[in-house]
């Protein structure tokens, strides 16, 4: 019986993933994705875009912090969004005198951020701008990571900080450093304690799924818009399923 339930569980899980995959491919390949996606206004992204333009004009730097998530587990998802944001920032600031700088608390994320910068500059034909020391590992424990990233915010003429990745409550030290430096802080994380702290300490917190919409808002490609549509549809499916489940439990139909 347990084996049958386990197999059923696996099949349902796989069907869920296939549903998500099918919806992404459908919106990616169909004409729907070519129509302009109506996105609700998220103030953080509009402020961020403006700040990128101002940074380019003022000759200042953008700081993208990718957190200390390990890509071998769930925490890596948020860091991949950070890499997408890094790509968009590097492109937007391609005319700037000072290229963006990234900090992270994991070796693999550091290598991936170097790789993202390299491929972005290669695609722009400006490989001479690539400097591997602009993607830095600052520390391996939460506090060491925060302590290592704070001097970057203070010393590198940063005009805006974007925190996108897995953080804990130590992110308050980083947002505080941004505040003291009078630079904008846009921040999102997959961790609930970090989101609670960001609500209090960040200029523009990204809560829940808002971080994962960054690619669609920053124009990272049709795949990001398609996956955002998938998330909207599946979220409603899950909400309806949860409400129906609650009603069935209230009526004692479900144990």
């Amino acid at each position, binding site marked *: 019986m347990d084996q049958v339930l386990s197999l059923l569980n696996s099949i349902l899980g796989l069907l869920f993933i296939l549903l998500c995959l099918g919806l992404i491919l459908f919106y990616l390949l169909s004409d729907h994705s070519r129509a302009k996606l109506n996105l609700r206004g998220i103030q953080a992204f509009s402020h961020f875009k403006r700040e990128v333009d101002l940074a380019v004009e003022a000759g200042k730097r953008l700081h993208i912090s990718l957190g200390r998530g390990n*890509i*071998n587990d769930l925490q890596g*998802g948020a860091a991949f969004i950070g890499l997408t944001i890094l790509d968009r920032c590097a492109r937007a600031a391609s005319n700037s005198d000072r290229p963006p700088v990234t900090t992270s608390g994991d070796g693999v994320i550091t290598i991936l951020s170097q790789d993202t910068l390299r491929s972005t500059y290669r695609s722009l034909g400006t490989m001479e701008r690539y400097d591997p020391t602009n993607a830095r590992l600052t520390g391996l424990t939460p506090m060491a990571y925060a302590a290592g990233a704070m001097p970057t915010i203070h010393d590198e003429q940063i005009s805006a900080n974007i925190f996108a990745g897995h953080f804990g409550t130590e992110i308050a030290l980083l947002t505080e450093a941004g505040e003291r430096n009078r630079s904008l802080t846009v921040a999102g994380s997959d961790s609930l304690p970090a989101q609670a702290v960001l609500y209090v300490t960040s200029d523009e917190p990204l809560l829940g799924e808002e971080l994962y919409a960054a690619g669609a808002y920053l124009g990272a490609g049709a795949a990001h818009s398609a996956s955002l549509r998938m998330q909207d549809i599946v979220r409603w499916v899950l909400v309806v399923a949860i409400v129906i489940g609650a009603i069935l439990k209230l009526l004692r139909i479900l144990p």
Partner: protein
Amino acid sequence: MKKILPITNAIIAVISGSFILLGYFFPGVFGGIQSTLIGWAIILAAFALLLGIFNLAIVHWKKIGSEKSSNINSIVLLTSMFITIVIVGISGPTGSWSLWVFNSFQVPVEVSLLAVLAVVLVYAGARLLTRRPKWYTILFLVTVLLVLLGSVPLFLIGEITPLSIVRDWLAQVPAIAGARGLLLGVALGTVATGLRILIGVDRPYGG
């Protein structure tokens, strides 16, 4: 070659990702190849860590070369990194000298940063009303106050039972409901991110 390498990277990533995903659903069939691939990933991650530390040393070496007032931090970092590597190299990762370095330097510094963090959070909470003067900010601060008062016995009064009941209700009903809503969004976002990489349209590995 410039075009072949990114395509090869993408093919390797898509195939590896598919096997690892299938390994979660059908461990009997794909479990072996899944654990082998994860084992390789862990070895590569260890090398990435070494490269990251090397990168950290280069960044601070360059900072020492530049004439800035903040390069004293870089000198301290490089010196302590060198001394730690020597000590751990001789004593071993769990040797008494290595543990002495960890317990005498790393732990006190991290604990003091935690104390700073507590002060920063209190200050940020107090400043929240000027940052976002909205009704939900007041609701947030009142909730924080209620939870704090309900969590600790008060001076000379002790525990206030109604506040404890309110604290329990806040923690178990609205907080859990909100947290589940946020986690649902995070989970769907993570699935979407993973699928974009799995089908090769998002290539964070420079493809």
